[in-house]
């Protein structure tokens, strides 16, 4: 028996378990890709329009940040810049979640112990997970390439474009293989992997915003931070322009290194254990723990602290490059004119911050969903039963989690506004003048984030077994509408479904109270529905 014995059996087990989940991921991502590609091909048939768009995008920090570099104005290159950056995030999450589902989650639930007692080698579990996820990414890459070819784009470049997205997924699968060894819980491993994805996106954003524009304003030469990010590498392949196949070499070296590290870590730890030894805890409980709210805080604080760090970094990064925008604009009056018309009513920098803070608002709603779905996790693991068998009412138990989520969301956007304002203020030497308006603008995001959080609570109350899928689908749709709504040319009625659509673009636009109040009403109604439903239903195990 070698360390890899039993791998194929475990591959078949993983495929069987994922027979619904992975196809849903693949089909959704391909549908998004197909819609984006055909929409762009339809919107920009005209070479001159594409040239304008390329110049605008290459000089818009907002576009550089969210979409990434610009590399030419051919139809294919336009498609890559305008639509495909967000897909890299999609495949990254598909891959990290799947790897951890088949590795650390198996260990955490004790399934790995039963598997390991069979004729199964030490490395079989991780190898099987990586094979399945790599396979999913190959399928995705092929389908993505076929979609592009189907839109009459050049074949070789389309294959390169598909492969560059598939490699993003494989790179993050390798990162997840390492985080699955380090953390003892799948929650922790997923958190670390998500942080890596966020960091990769941020590094690329900084690198592209800080980069130079050449070739008549149609090509971004990214600064070095972009080269530290797998998402950056996928864009540096510059499909339909330079077709840099050699960039895949960086992917291959990185993936081999990370997978080797993961195997090395597996060999040096016990099944079920993480890399850190478990320290003994307190023999008696501190008084702060002894209430439903105290318990919820204890269970949830780690997640909040992690998000707080992420939001601080995000805000500081966006704030730090905020001054670049003024430089770009001063280069050309014509450009400033054009960008200002696209960006909104306020100054260009204000439109930029409106975009970054809106992104922060969606991110904060992700925190709220994660926090609120902990209620479902507690229920499914049957940890809620002994709590509800004490003199704690269902309403009080739910409130304890909801209060933390609501205050947490508020704290997170304030932190982001604060760090944006501080760094930007420091750069331009006006801290006092920048912090209050940016914190205020950040707070505008709260009602929309709470409305989306309300969906998670309502789903938990009404459809507990589907709550996780419903809440995260809602989140993904809102994120997509924010990122791709304009490109996909979605009807306003569809865009209106996202609470974030209704927010004023603060600090660029004036804040109007009506939509904020309406969103709070929606949030309250969803919360009330979820709580009433949970009071009436059976406590349901996993």
């Amino acid at each position: 028996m070698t360390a890899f014995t039993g791998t194929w059996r475990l591959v078949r087990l993983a495929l069987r378990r994922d027979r619904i989940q992975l196809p849903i991921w693949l089909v959704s991502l391909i549908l998004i890709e197909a819609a984006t590609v055909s929409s762009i091909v339809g919107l920009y048939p005209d070479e001159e329009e594409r040239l304008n768009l390329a110049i605008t995008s290459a000089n818009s920090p907002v576009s550089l940040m969210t979409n990434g570099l610009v590399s030419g104005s051919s139809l294919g290159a336009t498609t890559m810049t305008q639509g495909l950056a967000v897909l890299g995030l999609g495949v990254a999450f598909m891959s990290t979640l799947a790897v951890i589902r088949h590795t650390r989650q198996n260990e955490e639930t004790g399934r790995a112990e039963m598997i390991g007692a069979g004729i199964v080698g030490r490395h079989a579990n991780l190898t099987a997970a990586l094979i399945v996820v790599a396979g999913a990414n190959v399928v995705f890459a092929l389908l993505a390439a076929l979609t592009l070819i189907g839109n009459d784009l050049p074949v070789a470049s389309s294959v390169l474009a598909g492969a560059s997205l598939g490699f993003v997924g494989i790179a993050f699968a390798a990162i997840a293989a390492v985080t699955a060894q380090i953390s003892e819980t799948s929650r922790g491993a997923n958190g670390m992997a998500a942080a890596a994805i966020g960091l990769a996106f941020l590094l690329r954003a900084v690198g592209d915003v800080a980069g130079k524009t050449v070739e008549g304003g149609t090509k971004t030469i990214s600064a070095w931070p972009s080269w530290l990010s797998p998402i950056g590498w996928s864009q540096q392949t510059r499909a339909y322009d330079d077709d840099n196949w050699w960039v895949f070499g960086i992917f291959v070296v990185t993936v081999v290194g990370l997978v080797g590290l993961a195997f090395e870590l597996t060999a040096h730890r016990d099944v079920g254990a993480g890399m850190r030894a478990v320290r003994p805890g307190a023999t008696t409980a501190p008084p702060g723990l002894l209430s439903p709210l105290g318990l919820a805080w204890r269970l949830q604080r780690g997640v909040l602290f992690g998000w707080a760090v992420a939001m601080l970094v995000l805000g500081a990064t966006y704030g730090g490059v905020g001054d670049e925008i003024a430089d770009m604009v001063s280069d050309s009056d014509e450009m400033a004119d054009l960008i200002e018309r696209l960006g909104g009513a306020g100054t260009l920098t204000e439109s930029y911050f409106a975009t970054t803070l809106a992104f922060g608002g969606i991110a904060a709603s992700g925190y709220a969903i994660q926090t609120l779905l902990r209620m479902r996790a507690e229920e499914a693991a049957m940890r809620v039963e002994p709590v509800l068998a004490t003199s704690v009412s269902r309403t009080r138990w739910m409130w304890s989690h909801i209060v933390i989520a609501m205050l947490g969301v508020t704290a997170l956007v304030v932190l982001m506004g604060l760090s944006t304002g501080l760094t930007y203020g420091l750069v331009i030497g006006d801290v006092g003048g920048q912090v209050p308006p940016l914190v205020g603008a950040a707070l505008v995001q709260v009602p929309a984030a709470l409305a989306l959080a309300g969906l998670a609570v309502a789903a938990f109350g009404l459809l507990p077994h589907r709550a996780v899928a419903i809440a995260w689908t809602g989140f993904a749709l809102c994120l997509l509408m924010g990122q791709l709504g304009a490109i996909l040319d979605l009807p306003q009625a569809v865009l209106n479904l996202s609470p974030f659509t209704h927010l004023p673009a603060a600090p660029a636009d004036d804040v109007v109270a009506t939509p904020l109040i309406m969103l709070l009403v929606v949030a309250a109604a969803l919360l009330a529905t979820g709580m009433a439903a949970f009071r009436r239903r059976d406590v349901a195990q996993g």
Partner: protein
Amino acid sequence: MTTAISISGLVKNFGRTRALDGLDLSVAAGEVHGFLGPNGSGKTTTIRILLGLLRADAGQASLLGGDPWNDAVELHRRLAYVPGEVNLWPNLSGGEVIDLFGALRGGLDPKRRSELLERFDLDPSKKCRTYSKGNRQKVAVVAAFASDVELFILDEPTSGLDPLMESVFQDCVNELMQDGRTVLLSSHVLAEVEALCDRVSIIRLGQTVESGTLAELRHLTRTFISVEAVRPITGLAELPGVHDLLVDGAHARFDVDTAEIGRTLRHLTQFDVSSLTSTPPTLEELFLRHYGDELAREQEAMETTA
């Protein structure tokens, strides 16, 4: 005698599966009541309904004079619960969990807490993720027994405990009983129920099939008798209530319905009995009698497939 738990005609469906099918249960205040049944017979479902975690589809249930669903919070101040499968928060220590449950229930006695920790030999500083199944069970048991409540609902509380800890557990339940507390003890460890319980209810497929004191239930079963006489024994086969008879001259072995013991003994005396042993029925046999037909069917099915 007041009633702590009173259930009649309780029905609970999960989709198309009928988990409880008109279950009856009555537990008097101050008694230790055994709640017996094989896996999947509906014990845990009944307990979850009593705790207000599930809503019954039909039938009545009353707990400490209140309604388990509507008065859940008030009622829970007066009871402690040990789940059959104890799942704890991996990053909390055992001591923290014990204090937490105590506080959520309305307080616990610190002296009793440390005494129980010692008796159950439990290290409260360990994180719950490092506890074995048995140790997690101990955390729940200590948290429950350290609470000053009227009613204890224990769902297979000794699963995972070693024999030494089982006996500590039995001592604790006996102390509760002497203290006048009510205990509902669901179990399929028959020896435990026999040692602890005043009355038992046996359920099967969501229905109560037998309920009463152990003496009453034994009354319904057979006693095994082995007898040695001076003269050859005759005429036993004609007596009512005698089963599985084996006669070998002056020696006989048989089961007799407990109601017929007197008549049988009077018959035996005419042969000049020299030695006699009688073995009262165990709960095990009681149990087997209720599930015997099922077991027989299973055996038959196995033989046909073999």
